[in-house]
């Protein structure tokens, strides 16, 4: 354990929030529409799934931005667009000022080293036929950053050490490890290329609670040690609150609220954010029995044919007639606190 880690563990106050202003990532009016086709021989596009429909945000250097929302809201697609695993329909993704959407696959290669990902499911994101050591050294070989084999092996042991795994795991296969250990391998693989930016797509959701806390602490330590920037995609709001500097809330392909972490949790403004926070159970029977539960009705509509106007209006208790027609503007209601709702 590094000295910095030890020093931080003795603190009891909330972790300091660094005020960094320089943008690492800027997403401008990003749209990702997947075509829905009919017909086998001559496919015809009959509709589009509007997975992400015009969202804009920035991620500052050294910052962790939380991206929350329920299944199908477009949070994973947003992450995949930034990673250039999907070719966005429209919009810009600027990395240090360079628009990744305009780069060809060759020009993209150096950026792929700088942008890495940790996937949700530690069971399916590791190749079952490869040893852990090979999984970790493959990216270094492909990008030819460490040409010598013996140097790569040394680096593998170093990476295992960084994520808290014993060196003997290098010769093991994924099936010999538990979920928490596999997720550590996923993290080590993301670190192999010395990235600046990591997309954590539900990186702790599949883990048991006692293991989840271990991995969250590891992600925090690595962020501080290597000065990493994270996009932390998750549906668990209490984890997001613990880890993030700023939080963006998505619903049906749109961004509905964006604010500093404390501001968002202490003073949520959008009715959807409020409902989401209200639905999170608290492990305390006294508080839970006193708490008034406002349960939002209905389910998330289909992103093929989203509701007109504000996409949340059919489930919203504040909705007025205007919400059915006009798409609400994403406004800055307080410094740094953006909300897409006309009724707050």
């Amino acid at each position: 354990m590094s000295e910095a880690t030890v020093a931080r563990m003795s603190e009891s106050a909330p972790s300091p929030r660094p005020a960094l202003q320089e943008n690492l990532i800027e997403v401008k009016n990003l749209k990702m529409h997947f075509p829905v086709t009919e017909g086998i021989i001559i496919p015809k596009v009959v509709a589009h799934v509007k997975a992400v429909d015009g969202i804009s945000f920035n991620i500052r250097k050294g910052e962790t931005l939380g991206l929350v929302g329920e299944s199908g809201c477009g949070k994973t697609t947003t992450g995949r667009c930034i990673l250039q695993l999907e070719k966005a329909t429209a919009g810009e993704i600027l990395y240090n000022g360079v628009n990744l959407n305009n780069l060809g696959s060759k020009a993209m290669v150096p950026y792929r080293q700088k942008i890495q990902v940790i996937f949700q499911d530690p069971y399916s994101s590791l190749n079952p036929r490869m040893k852990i050591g090979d999984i970790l050294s493959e990216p270094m070989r492909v990008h030819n950053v460490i040409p010598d084999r013996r140097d790569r092996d040394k680096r593998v042991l170093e990476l295992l050490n960084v994520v808290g795994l014993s060196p003997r795991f290098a010769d093991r296969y994924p099936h010999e490890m538990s979920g928490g250990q596999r997720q550590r391998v996923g993290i080590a693989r993301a670190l192999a290329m010395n990235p600046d930016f990591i997309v954590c797509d539900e990186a702790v959701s599949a883990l048991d609670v006692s293991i989840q806390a271990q991995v969250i602490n590891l992600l925090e330590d690595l962020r501080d040690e290597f000065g990493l920037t994270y996009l932390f995609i998750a549906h668990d709001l209490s984890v997001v609150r613990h880890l993030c500097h700023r939080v963006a809330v998505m619903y049906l392909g749109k961004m509905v609220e964006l604010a500093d972490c404390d501001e968002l949790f202490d003073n949520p403004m959008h009715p959807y954010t409020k409902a989401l926070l209200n639905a999170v159970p608290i492990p305390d029977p006294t508080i839970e029995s006193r708490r008034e539960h406002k349960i939002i009705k209905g389910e998330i509509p289909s992103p093929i044919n989203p509701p007109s106007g504000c996409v949340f209006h059919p489930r919203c208790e504040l909705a007025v007639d205007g919400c059915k027609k006009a798409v609400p503007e994403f406004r800055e209601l307080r410094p740094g606190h953006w909300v897409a709702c006309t009724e707050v």
Partner: protein
Amino acid sequence: MTTLLEIEGLQTQFFTSAGVVKAVDGISYTVGAGETVAVVGESGCGKSVSALSILRLVADPPGKIVGGSIRFEGRDLLQLSDEEMRSVRGNDIAMVFQEPMTSLNPVLSIGMQITETLQHHLGMSDEEANARAVELLGMVGISEPQRRLSQYPHHLSGGMRQRVMIAIALACEPKLIIADEPTTALDVTIQAQILELMKNLTRQFGVALIIITHNLGVVARYADRVNVMYAGKIIETGTAADVYHNPRHPYTLALLKSVPRLDLPRQAKLDPVEGQPPDLARLGAGCPFRPRCRYAVARCEQENPALEQIGPQHYSACWEKNSLTSAGKVVS
């Protein structure tokens, strides 16, 4: 409150090539009529196997219930013939599974899957069963129930499918419903809807409920009593207030502390349970939680503590239980 279900020393083991896995190793608890009991623990602690054992649904081989008794209204379910057991399942005791995506039959219509139970157990005619199915779907909050009868599971969202599962569970007015991680696969707003629905329906019909979950938050609001399991054993049991406010086993304490909470100020650092859960095929002597326990003493290495009473309904299996408080261990 009359006792509905009484589990006594239940032992379920799996005979595998790696050895005998003691998935459930002598657990005992009771469920009163209309009571909601939670079974909490992490993956592999035996909570699901203990539930499947109640309905004798453990696959044999490799699994086998090797000891104990499960008395339901005075009858020992383990002594019943297969025929008699079939009339208990779905009729007296119903089950709601975790995965609404895989626990419904994809090639049978929703109506068919609900009426099957009604016709089998209650001998209803087609018309009677259909009318009852419409009533049930309405009860669990599904719109246009008549039209849904002819739909298939893939037409429905995850939340809707779980509502159908609950409708099937309620169909024969059982006395006990066992819900195995009923909301784990669902989004949080849908989870809140389903939990509220289950609470209201069980209160309305006086059905007892066993909720199995890994999420301590989910059951805080609903459970009358909580059993915490670790490595095939119940290590702490008590009322919800006992277990959440006054945990007396280091594992319960650690579980409660390791989750970030929305209602408390943010901590600088989470306090995880270090290490990994034990391999149930290779349990040695002593307390199975000892390698991960902060408060372990020499005695923990040799002797496995039994559940002992510490309050009116509060039991803990820990040698150090009397020096534990919710803040940690008091050094005497």
